[in-house]
């Protein structure tokens, strides 16, 4: 379980005739347990793509399918991690993580068990009774990821989840996410504007263009990663030093630069 398909998706904001055309003919298929990152310049509509999978936005043309069924409304089968965390400030860390489980009508004993495991997985054991405002940004985002993961969703939607964190925390969280993906692989749609982050995390990277927002190119990272044994390196900076990594990164950068040059005219 856990496939995502965009089929010729278009999105117009505002009036159909005079409105702003945000997306045009976006097609992308994400397989089960695959990690796909979408990179693109700001305003290209990459977040809109994610919001359509989540069920926050409707489509103006085409189809968005999850497990071969069209998306109608938001639901716990498609968990979202937001850039601004979006934790419930009036609930403790434990209550935040537990909330979705209660909505799924999971019994108290099993809930406690799942929450405890989730706190442990995200190294949050000692913060279970803290309120979000008492935690640092990185810790808050751990809670948000735990809240999404604990639901055992078919797909995980991450909208620039590390965009609001400082550089050091960001690196730690990226490594954490790679570790998490190894322990518990998921179908992930990951939105970012940071090319290195996309190459480091994703199996495939989709590059979006702007005006109209559409997918310009899809780059396979997984083949290179397996061939060059990136997984053998513990730390992100060691991976980023590898020639194969630099090569892929530069290729994506060039593709994005062309994009910006075109806009210049």
């Amino acid at each position, binding site marked *: 379980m856990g496939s995502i398909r965009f089929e010729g998706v278009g999105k117009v904001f505002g009036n159909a005739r005079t409105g702003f055309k945000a997306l045009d003919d976006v097609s992308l298929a994400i397989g089960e347990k695959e990690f796909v990152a979408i990179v693109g310049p700001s305003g290209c509509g990459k977040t809109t793509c994610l919001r359509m999978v989540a069920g926050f936005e409707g489509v103006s043309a085409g189809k968005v399918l999850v497990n071969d069924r069209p998306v109608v409304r*938001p*639901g716990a089968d498609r968990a*979202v991690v*937001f850039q601004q965390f*979006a934790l*419930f400030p*009036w609930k403790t860390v434990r209550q935040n993580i537990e909330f979705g489980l209660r*909505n799924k009508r999971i019994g108290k004993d099993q809930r406690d068990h799942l929450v405890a495991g989730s706190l442990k997985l995200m190294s949050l054991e000692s913060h279970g009774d803290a*309120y979000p405002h008492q935690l640092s940004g990185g810790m808050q985002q751990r809670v948000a990821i735990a809240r999404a993961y604990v639901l055992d969703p078919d797909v995980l939607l991450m909208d620039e989840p590390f965009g609001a964190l400082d550089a050091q925390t960001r690196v730690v969280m990226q490594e954490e996410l790679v570790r998490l993906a190894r322990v518990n692989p998921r179908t992930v749609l990951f939105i970012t504007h940071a090319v290195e982050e996309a190459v480091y995390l994703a199996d495939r990277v989709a590059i979006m263009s702007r005006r109209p927002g559409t997918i310009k190119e899809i780059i396979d990272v997984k083949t290179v990663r397996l061939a060059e044994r990136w997984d053998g390196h513990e730390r992100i900076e060691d991976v980023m030093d590898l020639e194969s990594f630099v090569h892929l990164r530069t290729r994506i950068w060039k593709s994005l630069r062309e994009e910006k040059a075109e806009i210049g005219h």
Partner: protein
Amino acid sequence: MRGRKAVVGLCAVGGIIILWFALTSWFGIIPAGRFPTPAQFWVALKQIELRGYAGSTLVDHALHSLRLIVISFLVAVGTGIPLGLLMGWNRRAEALINPVFMLIRPIPPLAWIPLAILWLGLGDAAKVMVIWFAAFVPSVINAHAGVRNIDKSVIEAARMLGTPPLRMAGEVIVPASLPMIFTGLRLSLQASWTTLVAAELVGALVGVGFVLNMAQQDIYPAMILVGMLTVGVLGWATTFVLGLVERRVLSWSLQGRG
């Protein structure tokens, strides 16, 4: 820093009291017919507490007013907050109710007093009605604004977690609006006291406003001062209790930390 502030504050309050003695008792610059001396104030206080004034003792007057405030305040916010939440959450309800609300809103609560007396007489029911008007409007406005100012992504997070409607209201919308709701409650409480005192001044048979009314008619400055200070103490006490409740309820919020 804190120490200095407390010392200067105490000196200021002490200075006022000394000034009071000086201007009235010692040098007689302010005639006793205009403002009581501390001794007269003390006599008036003893008189109302031991023998009663305007029909009851001070404690009875105060308790009567306090009871009216608590009842009317709870009724007003109990109706105002749900209406504000409804208008904030449901655009149709807002479109339907807002014009009528805007029509009634500019009428100050004190202007309802004559109508309340015509409809309900000089008893407690009329006071409950005017206090209801006074406390209702701020609680509606702030509950409404509270819902409107909820961070959109928090609502979306609740949606993606599959929250059913009742839980959405009880565990997401209401708690998220609470900081604004409490701002409204503080305004409502202030408006309630102003309105009650005015209503009791216009027509009543018991209560702190009635004490003020009788003291004014008797031209009894010391008793006026007793009444005013009682109003202040009661206003302070209710605000203090509301603050305690707020700090407890909003312990999770950033404001609660400071």
